[in-house]
């Protein structure tokens, strides 16, 4: 039963983290290239565009939920399982989500990178 709680917690952390990353990525694509905007219109235009973007706030809220879910998951399971599992699964789930929701072209090179990084993070954080 403890395992079920722990893995449910990990999946919730991964879910909110992926939702947050995708929403922030979408928000920043809608805002436009920050470097070009800064040169053209100045810092206040960039701040105004970011703060008037609903996806940005939804993304930040999802990231906050991911953080609190992590605290719950850590109270149910060992940190040596929860931290690496959540971190590495987030990389793989993000590759799926970015392909589906952001229409990124996730080719073999990016899948390999996601799997290598996920494996590496699991080894380092474990």
């Amino acid at each position: 039963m403890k395992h079920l709680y722990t893995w449910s917690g990990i999946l919730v952390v991964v879910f909110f983290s992926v939702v947050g990353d995708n929403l922030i990525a979408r928000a920043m694509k809608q805002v436009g290239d920050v470097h070009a905007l800064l040169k053209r219109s100045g810092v206040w235009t960039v701040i105004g565009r970011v703060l008037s973007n609903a996806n940005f706030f939804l993304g930040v809220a999802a990231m906050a939920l991911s953080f609190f879910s992590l605290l719950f998951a850590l109270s149910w399971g060992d940190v040596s399982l929860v931290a690496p599992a959540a971190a590495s699964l987030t990389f793989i789930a993000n590759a799926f989500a970015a392909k589906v929701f952001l229409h990124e072209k996730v080719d073999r090179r990016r899948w390999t990178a996601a799997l290598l990084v996920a494996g590496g993070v699991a080894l380092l954080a474990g």
Partner: protein
Amino acid sequence: MLSHGMKQVGSVSLHRLPGLILAITNPWVAIGIVLLLGFFASYMNALSWADLTYVLPATSLGYVLLALVARFVLHEQVSPLRWLGIALISGGVGFVAGGPALTHPHEESSEDPRLANAARGGAPQAVTGAER
């Protein structure tokens, strides 16, 4: 820095929430928060001109940096498994860095062609939708 600062502040419970606000006055916690904000601003800046599947693996270099600092600055022992982890992350980042940074056009390109052109200029390896 946050961890170092919070250890100086001491434990904070739900019954002592003002203690959490006081924690911000600790210089280590304040510097940690400023650095976190800097990370988030840089992350958002990168996401404005590159794909999420390009930026996210690159941010994992932080784990590698942390392990190297632990080994060479703090003189901690890094196990062979962790060195393998460092190698895997470095390899993964190398893989993704060799490809294009952007694989789809900016959503703004239809509204503001000037911005779209500037954005492509900002990302030298960008691939436009037409090239796909």
